[in-house]
């Protein structure tokens, strides 16, 4: 029993079909619990008031925006090395989810920033690197959409993902060099002085777990759709031929 068995699409479909309802239900449950807890059962911040509660959407979304790219990177590597179609399709399925998470992080940040920093947008390193990350997602998805042959598309997007990862990291440090930040430091610092109060930290952990589950459910569902679309195309090609 190894992970590689799921390279077989039939095997993947069977297992993911059984797992998906549970993951979806768990994601919905955790998300509801985390947001209700975060929005109604945490105190207002003494300086930021109720706006602090956007944290419970902003931080998990930002985390998943980066993790989705890392997942795509791993899936692309697996495709390039072992030629497992499920892996390539999973990378394709994760891209729009990651792009949406990036957009959510940017939007919630702007909504929070308007009253707090007095501006919707500042050319802060973190904000800028997220905008650049969004551009990387768009380029990646556009390349998937533009190439007709699915195997060629999978290869080219995988190479782009690898190169893009290197340049995304470079861009992150370049914009750090380029401008001083307005954004606060790490939200989950373990240093005692910077650490968030436990009243905020616990619902935040729950929200992060909920976003991981949500991402998992969305990617599984989208991968299943991609596999079905691939099957449909093969069936139609066979029909035309025969």
């Amino acid at each position, binding site marked *: 029993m190894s992970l590689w068995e799921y390279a077989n699409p039939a095997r993947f479909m069977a297992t993911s079909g059984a797992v998906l309802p549970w993951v979806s239900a768990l994601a919905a449950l955790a998300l509801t619990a985390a947001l209700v807890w975060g929005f109604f059962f945490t105190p207002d911040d003494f300086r930021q008031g109720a706006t602090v509660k956007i944290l419970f959407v902003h931080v998990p979304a930002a985390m998943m925006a980066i993790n989705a790219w890392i997942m795509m990177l791993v899936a692309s590597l697996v495709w390039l090395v072992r030629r497992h179609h499920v892996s390539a399709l999973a990378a394709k399925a994760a891209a729009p989810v990651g792009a949406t998470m990036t957009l959510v992080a940017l939007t919630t940040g702007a909504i929070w920033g308007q009253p707090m920093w007095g501006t919707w947008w500042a050319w802060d390193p973190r904000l800028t690197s997220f905008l*650049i990350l969004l551009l990387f997602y*768009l*380029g990646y998805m*556009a390349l998937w959409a533009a190439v007709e042959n699915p195997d*060629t598309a999978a*290869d080219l997007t995988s*190479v782009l993902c690898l*190169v893009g990862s290197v340049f995304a990291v*470079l*861009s992150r440090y370049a914009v750090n060099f380029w401008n001083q930040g307005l954004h606060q430091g790490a939200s989950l610092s373990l240093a005692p002085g910077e650490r968030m109060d436990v009243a905020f930290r616990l619902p935040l952990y729950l929200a992060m777990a909920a976003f991981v589950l949500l991402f998992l459910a969305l990617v599984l569902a989208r991968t299943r759709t991609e596999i079905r679309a691939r099957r449909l195309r093969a069936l139609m090609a066979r029909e035309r031929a025969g």
Partner: protein
Amino acid sequence: MRALLLRDLRLAVRAGGGFGLALAFFLIVAVLVPLGVGPGGTTLAVIAPGILWLGALLACLLSLDRILALDWEDGSLDLLATAPIPLEAVAATKALAHWLTTGLPLVLFAPVLGVLLNLAPAGLAWLALALLVGTPALSVIGTFGAALTVGIRRGGLLLSLIVLPLYVPTLVFGAAVVTRGAAGLTTATPLALLAAITALAAAILPFATAAAIRVNLR
């Protein structure tokens, strides 16, 4: 390799190669910006480094699809792939030829445009140096983008969407060198980082470019 380099250079210089086009585009950008921003000396001097770098970037971008598209259409890319030199060397040579025909003229021409845009005299030499160090990265990255999109009809817009985010680090450090140089500050850090990015791109991207060409030729 030398034969390939000479062939690419000759193709670029002769009619239809678009050798002067990038340069002319660079000139037009430098002429249009003061018309849009206003002739005020100080404003122009402040934005000149960024404008000149952006102009170089876009001029480079314009000529990218020529690197591989013509060879792809007439089938010479297939011959190059079966040639005795490795495809990685072909990719590197193509990038070098592109740089010699677009990047190098920009480097030589940029100080003139710097004067047009009221860039401080101290910044002119830094502008040329930053472009000299940074534009090879633009050509190498651009060749990679061209290899990714060579099989796509009308892939020009897609090419810019893919390549421009990859240009971010070069643009940031390149413009920083010129801004600091013009202000009389030390430029060692951004210049070293700019050179590092060029070296990194030149070291790894020919392999990615060759991989992408192989996939497209399959």
